[in-house]
């Protein structure tokens, strides 16, 4: 499916259907990440259950430590 990720259109592979799967696909599953889908932040305990839909506007910010 096609989603908009941080302002850019991305085509996701078939198997990516949930927020958790999206994070794994982006190799961010072990990071501190904040995910917003269609202007609403998805809480961590909803990552497994929150389904993605075509056309979703996803904003995703992961934490880094450097400075």
């Amino acid at each position, binding site marked *: 499916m096609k989603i908009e990720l941080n302002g850019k259109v991305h085509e996701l592979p078939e198997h990516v259907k949930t927020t958790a799967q999206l994070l794994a696909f982006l190799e961010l599953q072990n990071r501190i990440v*904040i995910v917003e889908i269609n202007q609403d*932040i998805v809480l961590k305990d909803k990552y497994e259950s929150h389904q993605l839909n075509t056309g979703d506007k996803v904003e995703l910010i992961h934490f*880094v430590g450097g*400075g």
Partner: protein
Amino acid sequence: MKSRYLKQELFIGKTGQKKIEESTIVVFGMGALGSAISEMLVRAGVGKLVIADRDYVEWSNLQRQQLYTEDDAKKKLPKAVAAKQRLQSINSQTIIKEHVMDIFFQNVEELAEGASILMDATDNFETRLVINDAAMKHNIPFVFGACVGSYGMTYPVLPGKGPCFHCLVDYIPSQNVTCDTEGVISPIVQWVASMQVAQAMQILSGEDVTPTLRSFDIWKMEHAEMNVEKLKNLDCPSCGIERLHPFLTMEKHTKADILCGRDAVHIRPPVPRTLDLKYLSKQWEQQTTNMLANAHLLSFQYEPYRVILFKDGRAIIHGTADITMAKNVYTRLTG
């Protein structure tokens, strides 16, 4: 002399400029972000700037840490000392107080006390959580910033408004996740520092600042931002109903941190101690090479390690990422 702020005052107004000139700002960490943030703040005319850093200038810093010169690297000057010299030459009117120290629970509140804003320029989550606790305890805004590679992020922690840093980062990530070995380019440093300083100026001049987390990848040209109000945790031990400020409590052991991507370990004794650098340099003269001393530290080669001993009892052991090994070397050298 006043006309030096003319352009800024035209933009920000007389009241805003006055607020900036009356402010005290603490910059934690004087690496890449700390250098960029401090230079902007001093040029903007902040009244008092407090800077703190545990490290000394090395050649690999010069690519992005804008305050430092080849001469500083040759002399192995502590960053806080080299930074003060440069910053004071940029603006002689700013009161600058420098601290060559590791920031932790015992000194953070003293540093933060009376400050208008705390600026994050550290390189690890643990220190940020310590500063965040001090900020929450003393009701001081804390502007977070971080970067790696071409990616950077910022967030203003505003006491009483939105989540604190601990709410967002509810555990300290393991070292291998945060250890940033992939390098960094200076344009993203400048972006993060600019965002932090802009937010600091807005806070000072009374603009409405929202709890918004922002990120930017300056290579991919990818931007994201979100209001994170919803992540405020009422049970947060740092900013919630029952505030325990867990990162301001005692630790009893010698603290050793692996310095990311540098094959080095930083060591801080459990209680502050003063090292007699002159005595130590004599004591170890025979067993070491390339001895260099300045007013703040002693540097020498103690095969296979390169060792830096600071006056305040801290050390950086280069040539190992093994904490136990580094602690042994430290104990052997300082008794």
